[in-house]
């Protein structure tokens, strides 16, 4: 399974990176979104995979019984998902405003705008 997930991660990185190299502003953001999913999966996989055992302590016990998925990467990814959403929303609106102002979504056409 690690092999499969690593393939998915690699594929997402490749696709995300390819999109970020495009000149189109919209594609850049789609790529960014793919990249953030890929990174979350990378953290998830690197933390070690445990099937179907959520990190919950059973009622009445004071520690988990049996194997459990590592809670730390999960906490980190949870944060990353929500932050990723905030960043993406900002990037989207920035792109939209940039398009409104410059009338183009070609990144090369925006090269000189901040000079």
């Amino acid at each position, binding site marked *: 399974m690690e092999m499969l997930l690593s393939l998915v991660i690699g594929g997402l990185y490749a696709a995300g990176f390819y999109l970020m190299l495009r000149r189109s502003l919209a594609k850049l953001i789609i790529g960014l979104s793919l990249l953030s999913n890929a990174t979350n999966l990378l953290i998830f996989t690197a933390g070690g995979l445990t099937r179907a055992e*959520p990190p*919950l302590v059973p009622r009445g016990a004071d520690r988990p019984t049996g194997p459990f998925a590592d809670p730390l990467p999960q906490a980190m990814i*949870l944060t990353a998902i*929500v932050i990723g959403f*905030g960043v993406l*929303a900002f990037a989207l*609106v920035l792109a*939209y405003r940039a398009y409104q102002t410059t009338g183009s979504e070609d990144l090369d056409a925006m090269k000189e705008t901040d000079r």
Partner: protein
Amino acid sequence: MISLILRTATHFLFTIMLQFSLFLLLRGHNEPGGGFVAGLMAAGGFALYTIAYDVAATRQALRVDPRTLIAVGLAIAAGSGLLSLMKGSPFMTGEWGHLRLPYLERLNIGTPLLFDTGVYLTVIGVTLMIILSLAEE
């Protein structure tokens, strides 16, 4: 585009989603859930409302400005950490009280729950601020 079916369904779904979000928030410390998911769920309810009606109606249903929600949420989250300072413990030490209610198991109430409430409100505020300002374009 006004859809009667959507509006009727929203009428129920909206209430259920808000209630469910509170449920998620309160049980989050022991079962899957928590402030983030709960906040997103509540914001989802309002987003649905926006689709069925319009932004103005949503703002009315929300009663407070999303900016206020963000500010209050951040204040609650940061303030919950300050409580422990009064006892001389470091910032953000969890403080707990225990309630023994009849017919129920022992209830633990502590500053982390307060903190999670702050997260909940902030997430609702952030999500709605983004969605509503975009929808107004």
